[in-house]
């Protein structure tokens, strides 16, 4: 095993380093990373942000929203926790979690935590979860990553992962809410998250070689982060298809929008209601097909199609706000 330090608390840069080590830079042995993030919400690969996250709150509080390439549900991470990753260039043919998790359980037990693997994907202590684990596989490599709650702000986690209700139907994977616990409860009261990470690393990486990224590695990792992990298109464009119904009170009456959104773009927008308009609902549908489901893009598309003001006393900006819920991460 070779220890690699990303030197970054940006989740996208750490995902990019995993991808780089899995697909481009073979170190000749499995790689281990132990990393932290600034406050971040990580969606699973096939989840809908609108169903999992209070996006307006995340934006107001400056919490990053990103999509993991691995499966499972949404987690909240901050500097009170740690993530571990194993990049295995010679994985078993079938899916396995135990071989990546066992060294972590062993290290934590040696540190006094009554840690146990629940037999599926999680680590628990005293019956409560402190670590979720997920994987992805590309040609010839498996990437396993797990979270570790040490002193994470659990009330903030709860608030940020409780979105406002929308009439939204998605085929995506839904998160499962578990009873969680911070590992600091099992440690000496003066132990900090930093000290916990240092001690865990000493145990996990005992006897490991250390690979230091050079400038070329770092440049490539930053490029992968920006191309494959950052931005609106990753969070919303890579989402499962969904159907959404929104009703809004406009100046001239009520309007209901039934939307079909695929890969982040509007595939259909049925409009009905008792508003006054100079155009048929078909014109709105035609203007919006193929448009990214994002307030600014919807507004631009309406203006381009000459629909600014086509509904009585309703400008394009107001109509766009009615069609797209106030969405912080956009």
């Amino acid at each position: 095993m070779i220890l690699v330090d990303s030197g970054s608390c940006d989740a996208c840069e750490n995902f990019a380093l995993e991808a780089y080590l899995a697909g481009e830079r073979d170190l000749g042995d499995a790689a281990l990373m132990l990393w932290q993030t600034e406050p971040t919400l990580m969606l699973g690969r096939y989840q809908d942000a609108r169903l999992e996250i209070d996006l307006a709150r995340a934006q107001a509080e400056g919490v990053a929203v990103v999509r993991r390439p691995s499966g499972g549900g949404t987690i909240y991470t901050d500097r009170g926790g740690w993530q571990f990753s194993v990049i295995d260039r010679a994985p078993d043919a079938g899916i396995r979690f135990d071989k990546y998790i066992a060294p972590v359980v062993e290290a934590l037990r040696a540190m006094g935590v009554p840690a146990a693997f629940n037999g599926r994907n999680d680590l628990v202590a005293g019956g409560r979860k402190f670590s979720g684990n997920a994987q992805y596989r590309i040609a010839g490599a498996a990437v396993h990553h797990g979270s570790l709650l040490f002193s994470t702000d659990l009330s903030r986690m709860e608030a940020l992962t409780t979105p406002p209700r929308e009439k939204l139907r998605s085929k995506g994977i839904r998160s499962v809410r578990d009873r969680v616990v911070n590992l600091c409860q099992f440690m000496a009261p003066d132990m900090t998250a930093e000290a916990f990470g240092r001690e865990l690393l000493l145990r996990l990486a005992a006897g490991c070689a250390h690979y230091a990224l050079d400038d070329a590695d770092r440049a490539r990792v930053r490029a992968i982060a920006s191309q494959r992990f950052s931005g609106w298109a990753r969070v919303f464009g890579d989402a499962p298809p969904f159907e959404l119904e929104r009703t809004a009170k406009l100046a001239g009456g009520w309007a209901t929008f039934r939307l079909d959104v695929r890969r982040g773009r509007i595939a259909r927008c049925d409009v009905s209601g008792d508003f006054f308009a100079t155009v048929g609902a078909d014109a709105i549908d035609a203007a919006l097909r193929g448009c990214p489901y994002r307030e600014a893009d919807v507004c631009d598309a309406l203006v381009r199609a000459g629909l600014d003001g086509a509904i009585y006393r309703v400008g394009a900006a107001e109509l766009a706000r009615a069609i797209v819920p106030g969405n912080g991460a956009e």
Partner: protein
Amino acid sequence: MKIEVTMPKMSPEMRSGVLCAWLKGEGDRVRKGEALFEVETEKVVCQVEAERDGVLVRLLAEEGDDMPVGAVLAEMEAQP
């Protein structure tokens, strides 16, 4: 020769998988080893590769579908 692309069994416990994304479309020429689709099961996302060279003729499952192991997801015209 027509061959069927099926949902693989990636662990002894796996019963089904969610088709997250087609990475190739109908009519696309694919080479053995190229990633065809992405599937999620039990918190693992796998890119599944083509086992033969050929042309992807017909997609029989949609993104978002939860498909049982062994279900036919697409038809390919294999090239000798």
